[in-house]
């Protein structure tokens, strides 16, 4: 009699067995805790980061003995004192912070029209072009892009060669602060567009049409309707660009010509050049603190924007 087998196929039996195993491992009475189980990977990941931070905090309190290149057994705040009093670290911190703020502002200004056009255009071809142009840089690493700028903007680069055609002598376009800012803006632009686009998509086009029908011109509609509704996108994009710029290493190292270090470069120097991991750890902790304070300020003043996943105040 093969009918019984057909009535209860093999794959059902397998599913029953799997359900049985699942019930044994995770009984039904634990069902309310299931959502928390889903959080486990994230908790583990964050836990590892916290463990790393604890180790860094421990290292930051130990000083290097340059006669043995061993770290002290005792704790002290000598590294923090150095970090807060040596002019080098103050200069580098100030440069990083100012650059992060400038890059964030400029990137948002450039990213907004790009995102707006990408979301609102009625031409599928243009939208595809803008999307491809947006994602293409992601396939090219930051370092390669920075080296690309060396080729374009170098003394014998394309720009200087073009200038030479009209009689302009080669000029130094790279290895300075503006070049670092330029490189960072170019690197951050896709991130900002990607963060702004969902916020702009969420603004009903009808609202802009309604404003127009009530007599508002394009500028007034833009200022009073689009910009306020796009605020969550600005906040999300701003936070991402601000933190990435503040902690960047490669662009200052490559486009700065060695004289435009950011905090990350100073941390690298301590870890790998002077072997002073204690001071490097101190600078790393201070960078984490600075970034956290800035993000906290933004969240406190403006909410979390798109990062709040629809729960922002905006």
């Amino acid at each position, binding site marked *: 009699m093969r009918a019984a087998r057909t009535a209860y196929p093999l794959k059902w039996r397998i599913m029953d067995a799997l359900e049985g195993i699942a019930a044994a491992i995770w009984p039904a009475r634990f069902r309310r805790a299931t959502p928390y189980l889903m959080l486990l990977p994230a908790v583990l990941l964050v836990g590892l980061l916290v463990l790393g931070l604890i180790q860094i905090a421990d290292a930051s309190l130990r000083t290097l003995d340059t006669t043995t290149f061993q770290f002290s057994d005792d704790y002290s705040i000598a590294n923090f004192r150095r970090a807060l009093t040596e*002019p080098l670290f103050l*200069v580098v911190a100030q440069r990083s912070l100012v650059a992060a703020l400038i890059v964030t502002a400029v990137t948002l200004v450039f990213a907004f029209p790009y995102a707006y056009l990408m979301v609102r255009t009625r031409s599928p071809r243009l939208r595809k072009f803008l999307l491809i142009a947006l994602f293409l840089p992601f396939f090219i690493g930051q370092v390669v892009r920075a080296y690309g700028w060396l080729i374009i903007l170098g003394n014998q680069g394309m720009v200087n060669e073009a200038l030479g055609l009209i009689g302009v002598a080669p000029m130094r376009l790279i290895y300075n602060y503006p070049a670092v800012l330029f490189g960072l803006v170019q690197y951050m632009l896709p991130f900002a567009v990607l963060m702004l686009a969902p916020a702009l998509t969420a603004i009903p086009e009808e609202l802009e049409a309604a404003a127009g029908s009530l007599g508002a011109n394009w500028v007034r509609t833009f200022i009073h309707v689009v910009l306020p509704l796009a605020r969550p996108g600005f906040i999300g994009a701003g936070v991402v660009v601000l933190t990435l710029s503040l902690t960047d290493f490669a662009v200052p190292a490559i486009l700065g010509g*060695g004289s435009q270090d950011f905090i990350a470069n100073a941390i690298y120097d301590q*870890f790998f050049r002077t072997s002073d991991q204690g001071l490097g750890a101190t600078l790393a902790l201070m960078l984490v603190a600075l970034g956290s304070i800035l993000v906290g300020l933004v969240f406190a003043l403006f909410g979390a924007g798109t990062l709040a996943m629809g729960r922002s105040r905006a």
Partner: protein
Amino acid sequence: MKRFKPTLSHLSRRTFLQATAALGGASALGLRSSYAQEPEKPAEIIVRAWGGSWVDSLKAGVSDSFTKMTGIAVRHDLTEDNEIQPKVWAAVAQNRVPPIHINWDTTTNATKSALRGVTEDLSDLPNLANVTDLAKPAGLEGFPIVNTYGYVYVLAYRPAAFPDGPPKSWKDLLDPKFKGRLAFYNDGIGFHFPAQVAGGGKLEDIPGNMQPAWDFITKMKTQQPLLGEDPDFTTWFQNGEIDAACTISTNAREARKNGVKIEWVVPEEGAKFDTDGLWIPKGLPENELYWAKQYINHALTKEAQQVWLDGLGLPGVVPGLTPPKDLVGDPSYPTTEADFQRLIRISSKIQVENESEWFSKFKAIMQG
């Protein structure tokens, strides 16, 4: 000078000595054979090296001939010297097998590792009997490192930028026409000591009073120099970004090989002379330690040094090496006492103990 590493057992010392003597003899005779006393050969040994012409020269001079002689493949790990250091230190601290067998390192960096106690003693290498004093790391007990050659931080320049003749002094770089056209190492290495002299100070005052050096570097900062690493100098000369640089002569020579018109001098204030070396991290299995030592021993043979250092254009530690044709009489290839008198040598110990402060000071000036 042969001393034994106290942590090795008597048996392994004896085995090592017997086998090294046998291999040394075989090497001298150009024989390729195996010996009953030889420990098991690993499939490969890993040598950390600098890239570009540096690793090419090492491969041509030492690694290929070592493989031919022993049958052991040599893998070159191009991790930066500064970046491999914490990995090795961590491995030794955690009693793990280190990620490399041999570190090709600056003597200053290697001295840090020796002071930390993570280096194997190399005093029992037979070929140390044939090397000059340059091979011995100053201020350290025994041979935790073997210096393998010296190098000079020369003033390299484009002759077209100096139409009145080669620069005579580091002060010549203060000419306003060189603004933005100079380059130094980003931590100032190679320039601190000549700057001390150019700033009116004395070498004897190092490290106690280096204010003349900082004053001179502050003046140099107004020239807005570029700051970089070894590969940057070659690139910058090739791309016409700079007219002059304080760099290791090997980088300048590499640019010249690539068709860039470039010369170099040792200015009247002098130029820093330093050494690089080879060392073995602690924690290797005994057989791998043995073959790693054999690699370094082989690097100290005249044949290996000749090919390796022809590629780098640097003076070795084995007497009787022939300078490359383009470097005969060159100040960056010192061979006589008179040559060395024009160069500045400061002990590794002083450098190691003060390097962090000097780097910070240089950076504070240049980043300010």
